[in-house]
């Protein structure tokens, strides 16, 4: 679901085909019938943006038919935990949870917390309630108020406020009929999915879920994946072979670029970036990260963080100066890519680096992206080819409309040709967290240089510039340790990997794993989860022993973080007493004789902690984990059916309509995610969605995806003849029914219109697209690939120009997988005529900056309060 794996990840899809050959049932739930669907046992259509309802329907089916893997759920999830009495569900508040504040479009999460033994039902201290934005948590380490103290629980799962009952009640109205009404999925098809999925559960069987950006790129993206996690936990499919939830990444090593991130809110290893609140001093920061009485390995974040500072600042980092903590920047809010673009337009950003990214084509609201780029002092672009984001001042559509004037554009662009992956050594980290080393195959030609070369020398030069500076602001740069091994002028990637692995500061010995990290400054480590990748002085990522019959986990092929574990939380593959749930699904187990965890994979558990271990009352950190707490990074050691903390938009996933939707939310008065990020600006208009009027101006659902033949924004495929000839033009796929409705002809031109843009494409009429019935209305969907732009061997309009900026509140990802549009035959106008066309559409739809900006939709505009159902 949310993935077109055969087309977007064809190499990985071989394993799906292999599983199918071995008898697995493969189901593809997708708005379109794709090359993936063609190879599946079952294709199930649904309306783009209705996935939470669909998955919520599966949750409800599990409860209705009592199909949960009860032993697993009772032991390994938070099902039995009692939630605070002040908690109110969406069932009580018609689509909102308790704690909502419309003025800030955010929640106070204190009423979502567990009850603790002896806390008398009072809410947590105000300090614990302070608003911590979702982006500030770092990893799954959302802290838990009250820590690991004795949480009140009901092992019978009968208490009305236990998580099990709350989840059951929350999803009770997600019936198969509701799914059919909201998603447009025929009832029978939905029930087939439920039957197949729930039968792959229990001791002997598991099911795996694969998703990609079809799930993430929504204003409800994080919650969408949470819904799948709830199902997988209820069915006992987490931490077990053949189970889990697999995120298909958008690029090679996108996993790596979040592990050692290029994100504003994270430091390596998912440590949160210090903010102005948490960044007062090291102690405050660490307190915020680890919390007082927290269970689990996240409690040791002090060791991970101090070792990171030692890696950054070397000998300059000491206990006396908080290991250089004050040299780190602080976040003061959202500094994500979309916020930055609007700040560029508003003249608040002066310089920008683009590395392997082509936002003029690849990011939502292309026009805003380009206007932002055109309002900088300088822009550095490093790419394999000359991309639209480097040439926007010459060939952007805004040049045609006069919004960007080539001779007058103030941005100075520096283009640096980049070396390709074959031209440099380094690692890729794939979706299963496996780090794989690759050698350099050929020397780069001309001025092409590796990323490592660029940043090493940039750092070196900047350090030289500030070497004699007396300015305090230059101190972080002066303190930065920057002494990597260099051959010729090329810094050595394996030396960087050694620094990432970490070493003993006194002896220089490379560390064996993160268990050796210390918070006293005696170890350094560039990324704690990668510690062990150079264990024994050997580049573990370069190992290439393929799987054999004896070793299906191929533990000597590459290296997976953490500690070369291939299945995370694999303690859950054994029952509470430490025996495998079944012989066929055995992964790790407790060896009574040796008194340790053994198995086929590296156990994701303290090796010698017996299943019967019960933590002493006041224990914290790993010591506080019981012998049957498999989710060792969670603050309570359990899989979270309900998330008392860590999410901006509710402790349970809830079906909200996309920011732009043709229909009213059939489940609640609350239409869309009440905490989604919207930016009501004149240059970021939204199409109206119910209960707003005039949604009929943009009657169709628009969704986008990739083609096998092209890669993302096209720089790597539109420029290559062998790929470009395979998909030489931008197309828009429509069903024969929509083609008849709008008089569209196969291979003829059509233009697709939103309140932001109108773009043209060649029409592909295909039976692969089907209309759906949603709330008794026929809903048509329109699909486009987003690879095209102004440059290359084949060109076309930029599909992302159609989208506005509305974001998921947790991770600030844009909603580009579900919007509304109109489609008309013929080519689009250009220049002023295009601007006039868009203005007419906006006028017809009554669009103002207020459109789409209202959060609480329980009250009709201008209507009396109190419409919300009790």
């Amino acid at each position, binding site marked *: 679901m949310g993935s077109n794996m055969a087309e977007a990840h064809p190499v990985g899809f*071989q394993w799906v085909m292999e599983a199918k050959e071995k008898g697995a049932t493969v189901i593809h739930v997708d708005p379109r019938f794709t090359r993936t669907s063609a190879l599946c046992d079952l294709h199930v259509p649904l309306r783009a943006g209705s996935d939470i309802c669909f998955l919520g329907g599966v949750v409800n089916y599990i409860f209705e038919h009592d199909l949960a893997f009860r032993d697993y759920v009772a032991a390994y999830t938070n099902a039995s935990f009692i939630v605070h009495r002040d908690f109110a569900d969406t069932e009580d508040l018609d689509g909102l949870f308790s704690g909502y504040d419309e003025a800030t479009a955010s929640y106070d999460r204190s009423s979502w917390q567990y009850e603790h033994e002896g806390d008398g039902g009072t809410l947590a201290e105000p300090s614990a309630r302070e608003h911590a934005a979702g982006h500030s948590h770092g990893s799954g380490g959302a802290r838990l108020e009250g820590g690991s103290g004795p949480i009140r629980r009901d092992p019978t799962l009968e208490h009305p406020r236990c998580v099990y009952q709350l989840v059951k009640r929350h999803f009770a109205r997600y019936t198969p009929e509701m799914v059919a009404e909201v998603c447009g999925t025929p009832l029978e098809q939905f029930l087939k999915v439920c039957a197949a999925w729930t039968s792959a559960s229990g001791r002997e069987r598991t099911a795996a879920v694969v998703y990609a950006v079809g799930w993430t790129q929504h204003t409800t993206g994080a919650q969408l994946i949470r819904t799948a996690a709830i199902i997988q936990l209820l069915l006992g499919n987490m931490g077990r072979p053949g189970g889990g939830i697999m995120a298909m990444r958008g690029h090679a090593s996108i996993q790596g670029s979040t592990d050692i991130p290029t994100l504003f809110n994270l430091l390596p290893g998912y440590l949160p970036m210090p903010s102005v609140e948490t960044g007062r001093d090291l102690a405050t920061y660490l307190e915020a990260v680890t919390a007082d009485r927290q269970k689990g390995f996240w409690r040791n974040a002090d060791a991970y963080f101090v070792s990171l500072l030692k890696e950054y600042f070397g000998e300059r980092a000491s206990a006396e100066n908080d290991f250089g903590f004050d040299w780190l920047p602080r976040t003061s809010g959202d500094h994500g890519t979309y916020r930055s673009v609007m700040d560029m337009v508003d003249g608040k950003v002066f310089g920008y680096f683009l590395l392997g990214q082509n936002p003029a084509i690849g990011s939502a609201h292309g026009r805003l992206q380009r206007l932002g780029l055109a309002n900088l002092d300088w822009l550095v672009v490093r790419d394999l080819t000359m991309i639209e984001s480097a040439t926007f001042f010459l060939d952007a559509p805004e040049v045609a409309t006069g919004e960007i004037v080539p001779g007058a554009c103030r941005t100075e662009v520096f283009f640096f040709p980049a070396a390709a992956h074959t031209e440099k050594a380094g690692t890729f980290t794939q979706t299963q967290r496996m780090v794989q080393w690759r050698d350099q195959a050929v020397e780069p030609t001309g001025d092409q240089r590796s990323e490592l070369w660029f940043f090493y020398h940039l750092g070196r030069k900047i350090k030289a510039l500030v070497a004699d500076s007396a300015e305090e602001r230059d101190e972080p740069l002066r303190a930065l340790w920057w002494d990597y091994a260099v051959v010729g002028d090329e810094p050595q990637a394996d030396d960087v990997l050694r620094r990432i692995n970490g070493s003993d500061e006194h002896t220089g010995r490379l560390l064996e794993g993160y268990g050796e990290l210390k918070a006293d400054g005696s170890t350094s480590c560039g990324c704690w989860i990668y510690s062990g990748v150079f264990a024994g002085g050997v580049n573990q990522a370069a190992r290439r022993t393929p799987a054999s019959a004896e070793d299906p986990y191929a533990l000597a092929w590459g290296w997976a973080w953490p500690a070369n574990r291939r299945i995370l939380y694999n303690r859950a593959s054994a029952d509470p007493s430490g025996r495998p749930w079944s012989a066929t699904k055995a992964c790790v187990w407790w060896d009574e004789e040796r008194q340790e965890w053994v198995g086929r994979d590296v156990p994701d558990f303290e090796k010698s902690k017996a299943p019967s271990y019960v933590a002493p009352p006041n224990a914290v950190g790993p010591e506080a984990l019981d012998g049957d707490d498999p989710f060792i990074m969670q603050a309570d050691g359990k899989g979270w059916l309900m998330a008392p903390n860590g999410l901006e938009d509710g402790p349970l996933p809830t079906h909200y309509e996309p920011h732009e939707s043709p229909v009213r939310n059939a489940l609640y008065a609350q239409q869309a995610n009440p905490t989604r990020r919207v930016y009501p600006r004149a240059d970021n208009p939204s199409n109206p969605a119910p209960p707003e009027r005039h949604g009929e101006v943009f009657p169709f659902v628009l969704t986008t995806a990739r083609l096998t033949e092209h890669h993302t924004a096209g720089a790597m495929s539109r420029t290559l003849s062998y790929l470009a000839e395979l998909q030489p033009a931008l197309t828009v796929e429509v069903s024969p029914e929509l083609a008849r409705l709008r008089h569209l002809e*196969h291979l003829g031109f059509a233009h697709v219109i939103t309140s932001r843009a109108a773009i043209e494409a060649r029409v592909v009429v295909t039976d692969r697209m089907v209309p759906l019935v949603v709330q008794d209305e026929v809903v048509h969907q329109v699909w486009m690939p987003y690879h095209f732009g102004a440059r290359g061997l084949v060109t076309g309009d930029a599909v992302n120009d159609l989208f506005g900026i509305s974001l998921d509140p947790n991770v600030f990802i844009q909603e580009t997988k579900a919007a509304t549009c109109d489609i008309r035959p013929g080519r689009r106008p250009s220049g002023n005529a295009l601007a006039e066309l868009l203005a007419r559409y906006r006028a017809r739809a009554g669009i103002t900056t207020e459109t789409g900006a209202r959060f609480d939709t329980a009250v009709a505009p201008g209507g009396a309060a109190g419409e919300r159902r009790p």
Partner: protein
Amino acid sequence: MRIAPNSLFGPVEDVAGQAGHGEHPPRMGFFTDTSICIGCKACEVACKEWNGVPEDGMNLLGMSMDNTGGLGASSWRHVAFIEQPRRLAGSDAGIAGLPVGPSGAQATAAIVESALRRAPRGGGELGTSAFAPDHVPEVPVAEGPERMDFRWLMLSDVCKHCTHAGCLDVCPTGALVRSEFGTVVVQQDICNGCGYCVSACPFGVIDRRPGDGRAHKCTLCYDRLRGGLEPACAKACPTDSIQYGELDVLRDRATARLETLRERGVVEARLYGEDPRDGVGGFGAFFLLLDEPAVYGLPNAPVVASRDLPAMWKAAGVAALGLFAAALSAFMEPREP
């Protein structure tokens, strides 16, 4: 000169030996299993990369996901996509119960056909290759007014490396040869561009390249085979839809695969070109299909043009004898006084 049995038609035990190779490796070939093809076209790209085959035109053909159109001088692998408003055994397209009307396939096919003709593509102007009407995939019409089901077939087509290769049989320069692996290879330095091979191929595979004039087609990566490597397309195929190996082994594997699919109820599965008794003596590169060959743009019963050569020679011989007799009789006849 001694002519071996079945040198022009029928099964041949040792195709390389018959071509004069003494010690030679076993006959190598492809088994393309379309039931696991995901239509990624990695085979097309890998083939072009390895063999330095040029670009073949930036034309949107709109044949489903296929913008290659067919095999030709500059497309040695071609992935065909066939959209049909009918069910694939064992799978469910999820269309039942939706507000659908008639299939769009019929109208689409008509537009595609004209797009194909217009597309300026390598070899097209020579009047050869895939642009003959019988190579446009047949599109079955939906039975009722509403489309009830859907399936999407994909096939990576390639030179068949026939046991009796028409192209090789008619080549006057010896540019086309049978390799020691039993494959059929064009030697570009010998080809004089006469084009006889183009019309002799029952599949429309081989073609001349514009601006070059010489014939080009799949070599089964002869250079890679010599180096002990599998052909580029098979190497790149992520799902092993394209399998390379000893032809005998592949035939056994294909028979077993067919049986498995039939057991699973995929009754439409069939092998194409694995039978040495067919019109070209069996393919060196054969297929498992999920419909009639014609649906994929392949001839249902291909026949090598040279099959009829012996009979033609015989007929020609009789005719020659007749002429001779007539001529002789002319001399024998007493002249008019």
